[in-house]
C-alpha cells in the first residue's frame, strides 16, 4: 500500500496551549485509520489542519506525494478530502436534496441530483429519501445526509469526527457496512473516536494522541482496548468496583409523568413511569434530544409537573421547586456544566453555594456564611481531586473534567437520598470518568437511589442495575442491565430509523 496522506511535524499552538506538537503519521490508500485521544488531546485541531480550516504553525503535508497545504476547506475538497462533522450543518426547513445542493459548487438539476442521491444511498446501504424534510429526520439520518454529501464528491479521504456518538447500535452497524464498502473501493477513512471497541473492529491502524503529541501508531486489532486506553490516558486505568447491595425500599417513583415541551425545540415527555429503589442505579440511555434534558428538569424541580406524577418516599413532589426538593434529599446535576450546573464567571465558593445552601446550611435567615461556603467548596475540591489553584477561581477557568468532578462532588457531599445525573462523564477524560463512576457506585452502595441519564452505553452497562431508554419522550420499561445484549439495547433506543425507507 502507498501512503495517501503524509503528515510531517505538524505543530499548532494557541495562546496558553500547544494543540498539536510535531505530529507525524501517514494514512495509506484504502485503509481506515483511527485517530484516538481524550478530549483536548488535539484530534480536532489536527483534522482541521487537514481540512484547511486551520493553518499549521509549522510542518508539512503531502497528498499522494505532492505538497498539500489547503488554504480553505474548498481547496481540501477539490483535492479529494471530505469531512463529516460531529455537529451537522443542515437546514431543517429544507429537504435532503436541497440541503445537499446547497453544499455543492455546481449543483446539477434537482431531479438529477435526487436520482444520484438515491443511487449513492443504495450503493452504500445508507437508506435516505431525498425528498424528505431534514427537520423530520433522526440524528442518524441527518448524519447520512452529511455522508452522502461527501460521497457525491468521490473523496479519496473521508474524515469522520465521532460519527457514532449520535447513533443507535443498529445504526452503527449500517454505518460500518458503508465504511467497509468505501474502504473496499479504495477510499481512505480517517476515523476520530474514543470508543475503543469500535476502533478495534473497524480500523486497520490507529494513531494515538495525548496532550497534542503523537504517542503511538499501532494496529488496533493487535492491542487490547485496555492497552490503548492506557496509551491514551498515559496511566493505568482504574476499573470501577461494584459492591453488591440488596434493595427493597422504593425511594423515587414516577407515575405517568407527562410534560409538554417547554420550547419549540424541546421534547414532550409522555407517560414516563419508573421507580428506583434505595441503593439502586437506574441507567437511562437514548440518543441525544429524546427528552434527557426535560426529564432531568422534571426531576430536579426546574420544571413542575402534576404533584402526584413524581413521588419521593411516597409523598407527591411534582409541584415542589428545586430547593424544596433539595430539602427532602432529591439532588440533581444537569448535563451542561457551564451556565446550568455552574455559573461560569462565579468562583467555586459561589458555585458551592449555588446548590449547597439548603443541605449544608450555608446561610442563616438569608445572610450568607462565606467561611462555611468556602470550607464546603474546599471539601469538594479535596475529596474529589478537583485540580484548581483554589476555591476562589472562576468555574470557567477549570477544565471540563475538573469542573464536572466539582459539580458531582458538590451534590454527593450533600448526602443525597436520590441523585439525578445527566451525562456524568460527558467530555471528561478517562481517568476522571472512572473516578466519577466509582463515586456514583459508592453512593449507591451507601443506600442512595440514583438515576443516571447518559448517552454512553458502555458507562450505563458498567454502573446500572437496571436500564431503560428514552425515545421521543417515552421511556421503555426498565429491565435488569446485567446480560442485556447490544441488539436489545438498540431496539429499546428506537432501533434503526427507517431502515426500509429506500429499499
Amino acid at each position, binding site marked *: 500500500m502507498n501512503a495517501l496522506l503524509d503528515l510531517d511535524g505538524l*505543530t499548532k*499552538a494557541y*495562546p*496558553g496551549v*500547544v494543540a498539536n506538537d510535531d505530529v507525524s503519521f501517514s494514512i495509506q490508500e484504502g485503509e481506515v485509520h483511527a485517530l484516538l485521544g481524550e478530549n483536548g488531546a488535539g484530534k480536532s485541531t489536527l483534522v482541521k489542519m487537514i481540512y484547511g480550516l486551520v493553518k499549521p*504553525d*509549522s510542518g508539512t503535508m503531502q497528498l499522494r506525494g505532492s505538497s498539500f497545504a489547503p488554504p480553505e476547506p474548498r481547496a481540501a475538497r477539490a483535492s479529494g478530502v471530505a469531512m463529516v462533522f460531529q455537529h451537522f450543518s443542515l437546514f431543517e426547513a429544507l429537504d435532503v436534496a436541497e440541503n445537499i445542493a446547497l453544499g455543492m459548487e455546481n449543483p446539477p438539476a434537482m431531479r438529477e441530483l435526487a436520482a444520484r442521491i438515491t443511487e449513492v444511498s443504495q450503493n452504500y446501504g445508507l437508506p435516505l429519501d431525498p425528498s424528505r424534510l431534514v427537520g423530520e429526520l433522526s440524528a442518524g439520518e441527518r448524519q447520512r445526509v452529511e455522508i452522502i454529501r461527501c460521497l457525491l464528491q468521490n473523496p479519496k479521504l473521508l474524515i469522520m469526527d465521532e460519527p457514532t456518538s449520535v447513533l443507535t447500535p443498529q445504526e452503527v452497524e449500517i454505518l460500518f457496512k458503508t465504511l467497509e464498502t468505501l474502504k473496499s473501493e479504495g477510499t481512505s477513512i480517517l476515523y476520530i473516536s474514543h470508543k475503543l471497541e469500535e476502533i478495534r473492529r473497524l480500523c486497520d491502524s490507529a494513531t494515538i494522541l495525548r496532550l497534542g503529541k503523537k504517542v503511538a501508531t499501532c494496529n488496533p486489532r493487535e492491542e487490547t482496548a485496555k492497552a490503548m486506553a492506557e496509551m491514551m490516558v498515559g496511566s493505568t486505568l482504574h476499573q470501577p468496583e461494584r459492591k453488591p447491595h440488596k434493595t427493597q425500599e422504593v425511594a423515587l417513583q414516577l407515575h405517568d409523568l407527562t410534560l409538554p415541551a417547554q420550547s419549540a425545540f424541546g421534547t414532550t415527555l409522555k407517560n414516563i413511569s419508573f421507580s428506583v429503589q434505595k441503593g439502586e442505579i437506574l441507567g437511562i440511555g437514548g440518543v441525544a434530544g429524546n427528552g434527557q434534558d426535560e426529564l432531568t428538569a422534571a426531576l*430536579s*424541580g*426546574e420544571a413542575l409537573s402534576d404533584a402526584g406524577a413524581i413521588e419521593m418516599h411516597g409523598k407527591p413532589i411534582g409541584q415542589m*421547586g*428545586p*430547593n424544596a426538593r*433539595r430539602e427532602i434529599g432529591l439532588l*440533581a446535576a*444537569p448535563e*451542561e456544566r457551564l*451556565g*446550568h*450546573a*455552574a*455559573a*461560569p*464567571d*462565579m468562583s467555586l465558593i*459561589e458555585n458551592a*453555594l*449555588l*446548590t449547597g*445552601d*439548603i443541605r449544608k446550611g450555608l*446561610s442563616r435567615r*438569608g*445572610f*450568607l456564611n*462565606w467561611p462555611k461556603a468556602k470550607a464546603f467548596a474546599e471539601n469538594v475540591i479535596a475529596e474529589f481531586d478537583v485540580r484548581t489553584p483554589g476555591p476562589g*477561581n*472562576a468555574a*470557567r*477557568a477549570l477544565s471540563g473534567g475538573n469542573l464536572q468532578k466539582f459539580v458531582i462532588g458538590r451534590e454527593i457531599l450533600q448526602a443525597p437520598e436520590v441523585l439525578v445525573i445527566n451525562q456524568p462523564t460527558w467530555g471528561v477524560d478517562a481517568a476522571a470518568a472512572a473516578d466519577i463512576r466509582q463515586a456514583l457506585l459508592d453512593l449507591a452502595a451507601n443506600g442512595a437511589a440514583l438515576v443516571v441519564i447518559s448517552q454512553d452505553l458502555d458507562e450505563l452497562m458498567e454502573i446500572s442495575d437496571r436500564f431503560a431508554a428514552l425515545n421521543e419522550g417515552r421511556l421503555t420499561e426498565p429491565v435488569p442491565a446485567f446480560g442485556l445484549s447490544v441488539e436489545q439495547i438498540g431496539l429499546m433506543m428506537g432501533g434503526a430509523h427507517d431502515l426500509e425507507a429506500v429499499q
Partner: protein
Amino acid sequence: MIALEKRPTPSRFWTGITPFLAVLATMIAGGIMFAILGKDPFAAIRTIFWDPVFGEFAFYYRSQLLVKAGPLILIAIGLSLGFRAGVWNIGAEGQYIIGAICGAAVGLAFYPTESFLIFPAMVIAGGLGGFLWAMIPGILKVKFQTNEILVSLLLVYVAEAILASMALGALKNPDGAGFPGSRNFRSYPSAYNEDLIANTGMHWGVVFAFIAVIFAYILLSRHMLGFQIKLAGQAPRAARFGGVNPDRLILFCLGVSGMLAGLAGLFEVSGPAGQVSIDFNVGYGFTAIIVAFLGRLHPIGILLAGLLMALTYIGGELAQSNLGLPAAAIQAFQGMLLFFLLAVDVLTNYRLRFGNREVA
C-alpha cells in the same frame, strides 16, 4: 498586530484602576477638544474638576454637589440591582416623577396643618408611588412576557403627561394667580425637605442615598438575595437550577428601583425644586443609568460615580459661564467619560497582546 486575549479570571487590579484611567483619558481627549475650540485646556479642566470643590465659590458649589449627587446615587443604586439581575428598568425618570407627585400630593393635602408626621407620610407616599409605577412593567413582564425596557421607557412619557396635568390642574397652587405649578414647599415647614445642616446640601435625600449604598452593599455581598441577583444576571439557567424564582426576582428588582427613584423624586420636589412644576424633573432618572454603569454596578462605585457625575455637571456649567465653552462641548466631554469608561472596561476581562506570538 495587537490582539485581545481573554483572561481566565477577571483581573481585580484592572477593575479597580480602569475608572481612574478613564477619567485621565477623558481629561486628555477633552483637553485636546478644548484646545481645538481655542480655549486653554488646562484652565478648562481645572474649571470643571477643581473649581467646584476648591475654587473661590466652592462654598456654594460643594452643597450643589450633594444636591445633584444625592438623587443620582439613590436612583442608580436601585437600577444597579436590576441591571445585575438582567432586569432593565430604563424608566426611572417616570418612577421619579410619579413618586414626586404622590409624595407632594400627600403633603399638599394637609396644607396648612403643621405636624411632624406629614413629611414621613410624604416619604412613604413617594416611595410607594415609584414602586407602583415600576410594578406596571414588572407585572406585565411576569404575566405576559412583555419587554420591560420598552414598557418602563414609554411609561416615562405617560408620567410626564401626568406631571403636566397635575402642575396645571389638581396640584396647581390655588393662591398662585393662575401660574402653573404647585404651592412652594419652602413656605410649608412641615413638608419642606430642608438641609439638615444649613447650606451644605445635606438633605434627607442625601441621607437616604448613603443608607441605600450601605443597604445595597450588604445585600450584594452578604445576603442570599444579592447572590441570587448576581446569579440570575450571569447565568439564568444556573439560577433556576439553584432555586431562584425568576418572576419574584423581576418584581423585587423593579420594585426596589422604582421605590428608590420615587423617593429621589419626592426629596427633590419637596426640597431643591420646591414645587411640582411642569419641568421640575431634569433627567436624573436617565443620568442615573450612566451613573450605575460608571460605578460598575457596585454600590461604592456608584457613590463615587454619582459624585463625579455631579462634579462634571457643576463644573461644566461653570466652564460654560466662565470660559464661554459651548454647552455641546460640555456634553461631548461627559460623553467621552462614559465612552472611555466602557472602552477600558475591556481590560478587566481581556489582556492586550502585542505582535504575532509564535509557538510557545
